[in-house]
């Protein structure tokens, strides 16, 4: 008995020391992680340049004008495109841009002829986009500006898919309703409480197992 108490005390002492050690290891691990994260943050790669912070290539400014034209067909879109056209005409980097075509596009835009302006603007950067290398990093790789995709009217196949989908939606819903739980929450609660009462009022019978004996 005495030896047992000693063992327990020794075990307690060990577990206390063990807890202290575990605590130290955890603290060490936590501070190491924080230091590592700080280290990576500080020593990591430098900030990179990103689109939007002053685009200077003339052909990109032309593409911006084209993007405004295809995405916003209202007069506001045309105005923004005109601003970009003005920007490209005074840009320092006009490599691969046919300035004469850009000027024609400006005239067309001023007259409200956006279709002709689009064709002219796209044509004005033919040389620049032909010289582009395969896009890497965050380069767009855009050569031709397209309008947002316009979905056509429903085809025969679409209608067939639609009918099948409606059948699946209705059939699945009916099946799910059919397989729904028989009881509502209130009934289920009532059944559980009734079941518990029954269990409590029924004396437990020994099955002759060891646990019953204990």
């Amino acid at each position, binding site marked *: 008995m005495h030896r047992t108490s000693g063992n327990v005390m020794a075990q307690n002492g060990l577990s206390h020391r063990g807890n202290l050690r575990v605590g130290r290891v955890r603290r060490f691990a936590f501070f190491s992680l924080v230091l590592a994260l700080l280290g*990576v*943050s*500080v020593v*990591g*790669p430098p900030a*990179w340049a*990103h*689109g*939007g912070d*002053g685009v200077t290539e003339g052909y*990109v*400014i032309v593409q*911006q004008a*084209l*993007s*405004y034209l295809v*995405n916003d067909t209202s007069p506001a879109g045309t105005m923004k495109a005109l601003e970009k056209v003005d920007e490209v005409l005074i840009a320092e980097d006009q490599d691969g841009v046919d300035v004469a075509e850009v000027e024609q596009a400006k005239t067309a835009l001023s007259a409200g002829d956006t279709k002709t302006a689009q064709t002219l603007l796209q044509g004005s950067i033919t040389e620049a986009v032909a010289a582009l290398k*395969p896009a*890497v*990093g*965050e380069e*767009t*790789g*855009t*050569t*031709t*500006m*397209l309008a*947002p*995709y316009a*979905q056509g009217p*429903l*085809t025969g*196949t*679409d209608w067939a*898919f*639609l009918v*099948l989908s409606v*059948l*699946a*939606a*209705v*059939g*699945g*819903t009916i*099946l*799910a309703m*059919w*397989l*729904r*739980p*028989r*009881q509502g*929450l209130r009934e*289920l*609660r009532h*059944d*559980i409480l009734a*079941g518990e009462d029954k*269990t409590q009022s029924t004396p437990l019978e020994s099955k002759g197992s060891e646990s019953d004996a204990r």
Partner: protein
Amino acid sequence: MPAELVDAEQATATLKSPTWYRKAWAAIDERMGISALAYPVPEHANRFAWTLGGITAISFVLLIVTGIVLSQFYAPVPELANTSVRAVQSNPWGGLFRGVHYWAAQAMYVTALLHLIRVFFSGSYKKPREGNWLVGVAMFGLVTFAIFTGTVLKWDQEGFEALGHNLEIGNLLGGLGFWFSPNFSGQISILLRLYGAHVVIIPGIILVLVILHFLLVKRHHMSPHPSLPVGESSEQAAAAEPTQPFTRHIRRLVAFGIALTGILGILAILLPAAIGSPPVTGIEITRPPWMFWWPFTLENWFGLSAILWGEIAFFAILAVLPFVDRNKKRAWRQRPVAMTLAAMLLVALIALSIIMILTPAQNHLGM
């Protein structure tokens, strides 16, 4: 006819079925352990709110199936990506698969969110299920990231602007954001790396976490319903609650899966997924997908870094919830503090999202 009677009839039919059928079933079951799935689960687990996690898993399966098909026709290089998506969309089968993929992603996000809200309302994240709550929160974060990468893959103006924000946020993280730096692997396009993340890394991790999630549900059992009597420990359903085999739960999930596939098919045809114009750097003219509206309102107010802090705060709140909320009660009426705070958070997120709808697109990148 009640479903229980059908079960009984099916059991009788199995007994009466030809010997070869029973032998074949026994042989398959012995090797595949299918009947082990018939373990008992509490009756309340078959209610709709408690099947939302399963419906989320069905959406994930639909995403994998349609994603495998789409990956056969998608070109993950900047010069071809947008046109390859247009080619897929112009084909009736391609348009259907892409539409179902797009809407299944929306469905997965919505059902995962509703599942998360249900788990919160029923207090199912409480002891001993805190670990599984964290697994669920991690999966929700990964689903959000999968939607982001999927948006970028169509390589249109919307996707490129989303990528631009992500690159800037990576930049704010300094060295920790190294993976998002286009210079991390400068010889290839970042589109290719995001494609790898979208089709392998993210679904792979989600799959591992789904398995862990299911195993933990099996380990801790289905959490008790807050409106029903609980067991002695209050961590489990009452022993007197009727049970159903888990296979019955799966059967109802299959029914929901058929309905969901039909609904997604209808949406895919009537509201096809959009494809914008090819991307141009240096302009911001689009709005992000709806699940990113609330952090973008914060961006309009406080600058680009607010997206990062907003998302970190949102997921941090979710992650610490089971460790901060020590109230052992599960019924929502008995948890006024948690319910009030959750309602405030929800209202704030909805309000920020509505403000985003009313605000025109603004330029933030590189500012």
